[in-house]
């Protein structure tokens, strides 16, 4: 970017000075741990309380090979991808449907503010609490779900629901979808509201119906936001930890074991294999870094100008909303 004011460079040094705290904290708490994690992946560091590192002398990639060959890591990786995918599909579908409904000028849904507040609420609640709450709901013999099943005659006697891999996975997927569709919906609504109203008006004049409007106008115009949602959700999904850990601790039979949980279990239980955990971390790090940089290049080149414009519009709307909100008090 060009300088806005001539004689500006006199102050250039402050750009460096003001960035120093960030850089120092980043070097200490992010970069160093990253490099250190990578190094540990090549050592024999294991055992509680151990911290001195010795590089592997026989085969430097031994930990990486062991992790990649480990059936439970393979299972964990497969689970992570499946759990993410099966939560993302209904999540994005529901969010798109609701966003289309809430922004449709022909339907004018009333009480939108209240709906948004309620649908977003699960997102803000501690995931750890939600996981334990749901594991209580599916409890045996007398959890609320069993209570309902027996009371309404779906089952003759209480079932040990969480013994089933499918039920356990299903509940984790449900929790994830339930926690996140509200957030995705609000993001999409704000994106749709950023589309110029003239496009919609002329579409209506041309006689396009709701479905056509959605597929030919709304969807192409929120492509960037969809991509952004996809990437952030994928990265979040690859790190899924709280819910699988506190719901059934990866069980039954490793059916909800995720890679983050695998890493945690390797490093902080059993024989404290920091080296294996570090190798697994680095494998995940590389995958995430690739996804993140793909996102970076797509956002930077193709849609940067468009995105900037959108951000500016949103900010204006947001400030207006905050100002208006102070007076009216409703969302």
């Amino acid at each position, binding site marked *: 970017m060009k300088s806005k004011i001539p004689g500006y*460079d006199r102050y*250039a040094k402050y750009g460096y000075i003001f960035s120093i705290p960030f850089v120092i904290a980043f070097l200490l708490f992010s970069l160093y741990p990253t490099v250190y994690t990578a190094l540990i992946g090549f050592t024999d560091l294991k055992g509680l309380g151990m911290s001195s590192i010795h590089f592997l002398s026989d085969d430097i990639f031994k930990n990486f090979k062991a992790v990649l060959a480990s059936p439970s890591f393979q299972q964990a990786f497969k689970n992570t991808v499946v759990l993410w995918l099966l939560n993302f599909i209904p999540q994005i579908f529901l969010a798109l449907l609701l966003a289309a409904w809430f922004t449709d000028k022909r339907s004018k849904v009333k009480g939108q503010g209240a709906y948004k507040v309620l649908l977003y609420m699960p997102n803000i609640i501690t995931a750890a609490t939600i996981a334990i709450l749901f594991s209580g709901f599916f409890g045996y013999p007398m959890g609320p779900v069993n209570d309902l099943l027996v009371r309404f005659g779906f089952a003759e006697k209480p079932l040990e629901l969480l013994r089933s891999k499918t039920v356990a996975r299903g509940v984790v997927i449900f929790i994830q979808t339930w926690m996140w569709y509200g*957030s995705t919906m609000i993001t999409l609504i704000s994106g749709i509201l950023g589309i110029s109203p003239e496009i919609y008006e002329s579409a209506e004049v041309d006689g396009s119906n709701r479905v056509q409007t959605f597929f030919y106008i709304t969807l192409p115009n929120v492509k960037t936001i969809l991509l952004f949602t996809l990437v952030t959700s994928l990265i979040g999904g690859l790190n899924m930890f709280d819910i699988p850990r506190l719901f059934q601790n990866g069980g039954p039979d490793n059916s909800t074991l995720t890679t983050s949980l695998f890493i945690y279990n390797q490093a902080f239980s059993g024989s404290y294999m920091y080296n294996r955990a570090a190798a697994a971390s680095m494998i995940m790090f590389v995958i995430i870094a690739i996804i993140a940089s793909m996102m970076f290049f797509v956002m930077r080149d193709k849609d940067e100008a468009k995105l900037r414009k959108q951000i500016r519009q949103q900010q204006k709307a947001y400030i207006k909303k905050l100002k208006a909100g102070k007076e009216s008090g409703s969302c």
Partner: protein
Amino acid sequence: MLKNKENRIIKIIIYVVCTFLAILSVLPFVIMIVNATRSTTEIQQHAISLIPSGYIMNNFKILVGKSFNPLVGFMNSLIISVGSTALALYFSSLTAYAQVAYNWKLRNAFFSFIMIVMMIPAQVTMIGFYQMVYKIHMTNHLSMLILPAIASPAMVFFMRQYLQPTLSMEIVQSARIDGAGEFKIFNRIVLPIMKPAIATQAIFSFVASWNNLFTPLVLLTDQKKYTMPIMVSLLKGDIYKTEYGSVYLGLTLTVLPLIIVYLLLSKYIIAGVALGGVKG
């Protein structure tokens, strides 16, 4: 006329689906809160009820009689969340200001760097972080959960996007002419301009820190240092196996502050989510 009828049907479907989803959002928490007031025997007879009972004090006694100490968890979580949020807000604003106001050589490179690293979660580098903290004997120090917030790349990105169109360099220039130093200009003039962005980010940063389980679980082994999410995880243990009422009460206690704050600030939170969507 046909169009009108079709419109009505669509509207009815919309309201039915939205109301169903709204109930689905609330119901688990309602069951949780009601069960917190019921005795274990009552819950065993019927685990779902919408009528509160009178066993809340009894449940509370059983709850705190074991290892669960909500007050300790609450205080530790508060210290960490307030500390890390304050640091993240101040230093992210400062870094963003350096991006927007000054023309320095590495500026664009530094910004690209921030954009790349902001997607990388702290979790994948936790082993190295733990080993580092362990080596300097700082596990069980809350500061290790607070100080890393000084470098919050995603927040810097957001603050920069906000500041870019908002900041007028003329104001900065006139303050310079009045003899104000650069640091003072940032504290006195720029920070107030950024208030709306700071408010939004404050909420999200606070909630994220409050709900974080992974990092505290790795670093904190001393019961007196446990945060709320670790306290919650104790409820899963064997000691509360048959004390259903107390478990529900414990869960309620951890969630209640969040629900209250959410309902008070929901307007800003929803607006903040909307803004965050295009933050990139």
